[in-house]
């Protein structure tokens, strides 16, 4: 009985932790560094989860609205870069620069998020190894809306 209980408890704990492990992967396994994205939309959802933070935007297209989902760094990593839980409030207009998923779906890895109101650029803690954050570079294609 004791052995069965121990095995059951260990299995349960293992299953729970496995979901976190599955979410952790290499950049190259999921995203294509050659598929550059520069896309504007409105934030509809943010999930501050480990090991990655995710957010979704609605993008107005010619044939309606597309929903794009983006992966960023860990919540702790983003907070160390100055992000707060209110940085990407629902309804915030953003321009996202990053790379698209290998499968061509509307998912991507964000390198930088530009707040459209102020043209403030926030680095998104991408896991792309050769990405260099260049804070001196101009935020092109953005005119402050306020």
């Amino acid at each position, binding site marked *: 009985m*004791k052995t069965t*209980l*121990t095995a059951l*408890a*260990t299995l*349960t*704990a293992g299953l*729970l*932790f496995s979901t976190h492990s599955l979410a952790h992967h290499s950049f190259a396994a999921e995203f294509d560094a050659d598929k550059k994205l520069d896309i504007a939309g*409105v934030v*509809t*959802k943010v999930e501050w989860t480990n090991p990655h933070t995710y957010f*979704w935007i*609605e993008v*107005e297209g010619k044939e309606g*609205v597309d*929903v794009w989902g983006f992966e960023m760094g860990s919540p702790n990593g983003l907070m160390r870069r100055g992000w707060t839980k209110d940085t990407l*409030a*629902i*309804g*915030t*207009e953003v321009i996202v620069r990053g790379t698209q998923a290998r499968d061509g779906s509307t998912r991507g890895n964000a390198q930088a998020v530009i707040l459209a*109101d102020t043209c403030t650029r926030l680095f998104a803690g991408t896991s792309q190894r050769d990405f260099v954050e260049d804070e001196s570079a101009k935020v092109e294609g953005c005119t402050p*809306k*306020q």
Partner: protein
Amino acid sequence: MFSRIAIFFACLGLSALLWAQTGHPAKGSWSGNLTSASGEVTRLRLLIDDHNGELSGAVNPGRNAVEMSKVTLDAATWTLTINAKMPEGDVVLTGKLSNLGSWLNRKYVGTYKQGSATGNFDFTIN
């Protein structure tokens, strides 16, 4: 000793999942369309919050947000009514929440009235 540690971690994991199950069914970010009787489609986003059962929120949250003037839920029929003073005129959305157990496909479907115009709406939680 090992079994106690294993049970402790299992309980810890389960408690985290249980914690995530709380929340008002209307609370959250919703996206959808209003379709007028003449077929004109207007995209809208709703952000609804809950303060101890009292609902509030905004239509099109962001720079051009419009605060909801009144949000009520009849829990017996899951009928949610939203009033907002939009620039184009006061709007009243009346519809039912469904798929309440769904995390990603919860729906808010019904009819709206804005001045003399009427139509249908269909929102899905984001």
